[in-house]
């Protein structure tokens, strides 16, 4: 089918020119590393801030309403809009992608962290307290391990979201595999587009599978209920 369409449009531009790829292997490696480190950095910053936010929301219940509302509004801002809005302010560089990606990562992760601890069975927790665990012991031995499956599910969604958003950032020349796509689209050249597409999909799928495996590892007591909120 691809061939048929290509045939109709006259001179046959192959989906991918391997020679071009061969000449750009260094570029490919650089973009891949950039994509990876942007993702990891945004994830780490997001985890730190989301943990803080979730702790505050659980410690002072009245903050939960306003903070949730704030993160929900942040979430409705389309990523392109956020990239575009930040660019003129901060200029091209890593500040824009890091700030934008961290924002999304904390916005996606915070509700998972809240739910992870709020949904624990109160009778299990009470049993732990009644057996003489101090708050710190209980948190380490009971709350945290039981919350892990939901936390990992949250990290999974967050990681995949960020990998995708790094790609979008590439459209603004902000690094990662998106740069290939930007390049390809701007001069109607399919090879870099395909490289960018395949690269970002591979990273996303590998990250996703990694979390699935990790999720099973941290919760051997429950069959993996692979359910994300719709």
């Amino acid at each position, binding site marked *: 089918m*691809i061939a048929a*369409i*290509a045939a109709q*449009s006259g001179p046959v*531009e192959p*989906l991918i020119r391997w020679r071009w790829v061969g000449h750009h292997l260094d570029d490919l490696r650089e973009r891949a590393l950039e994509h990876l480190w942007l993702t990891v950095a945004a994830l780490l910053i997001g985890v730190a801030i989301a943990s803080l936010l979730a702790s505050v929301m659980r410690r002072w219940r009245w903050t939960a309403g306003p903070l949730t509302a704030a993160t929900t*509004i942040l*979430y*409705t*801002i*389309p*990523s*392109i*809009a956020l990239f*575009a*809005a930040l*660019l*003129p302010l901060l200029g091209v560089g890593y500040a824009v992608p890091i700030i934008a990606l961290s924002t999304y990562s904390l916005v996606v992760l915070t509700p998972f962290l809240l739910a992870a601890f709020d949904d624990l069975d109160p009778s299990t927790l009470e049993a732990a307290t009644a057996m003489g665990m101090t708050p710190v012991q209980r948190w380490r031995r009971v709350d945290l391990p039981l919350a892990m499956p939901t936390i990992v599910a949250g990290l999974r969604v967050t990681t*995949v979201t960020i*990998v*995708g*958003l790094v*790609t*979008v950032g590439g*459209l*603004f020349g902000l690094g990662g595999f*998106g740069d290939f*796509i930007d390049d*390809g*689209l701007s001069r109607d050249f*399919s090879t870099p*587009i*395909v490289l*960018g*597409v395949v690269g*970002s*999909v591979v990273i*996303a*799928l590998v*990250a*996703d*599978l990694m979390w699935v495996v990790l999720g099973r590892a941290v919760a051997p007591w429950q069959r993996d209920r*692979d*359910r*994300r*909120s*719709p």
Partner: protein
Amino acid sequence: MSGPVEFLTTAANWAGNDGIGARLATHLWVSVLAVGAAAVVALPTGIAIGHTRRGRDLAVAVTNLSRAVPSLAVLAFVVAAGWGIGFVPTWIAMFALALPPLFVGAVTGVSEVDPAVVDAAVGMGMSASQVVRSVEIPLALPLVVSGLRVAVGQVIATATLGAFVGYNTLGRFITVGRANGNDGMLYGGVVVIVALAVAADSALQRWAKTLRSRR
């Protein structure tokens, strides 16, 4: 920031083929077509799988895995493959984006209906199709709607990408504004997109709330 205010309050910017009105319409048009088509595909299959529960876990797992594929990758691939530019890649990418939340919402919604209720319905002599129509679907509706809410939210936000493949959605103000160094247009476009996303989300949220309170 007089830029975006000026851009948005200038009547001329709203009219014409390049105006805010036309691009808003384009943006909504592709969003509605994509979400509608995805619903036509995802809801019946999701309800069927949720009802029989056969292959449910696998279907949900595969669907969730498919969510890992970035929309931009889909969009770019369609262009690279030469299937077209403009509407076609945008629609395909938005369709693919809307599919998973709608499908998972329907599957979990139906399959998590209290088995005792379904039992009672069967016990009162309802046929399988009656059970689906008058018990499972109404009870699944809140989850289906929250799936729809996610789908619409993501599609409206992401349809912006169409501008990068020659489709004149609201994202066009961002690409053109950036290319021409017109920050007023860029931020104006951002404001319109955010407003649209917030409006759509709160409308669906209100609908979901009415559905829940009606139970």
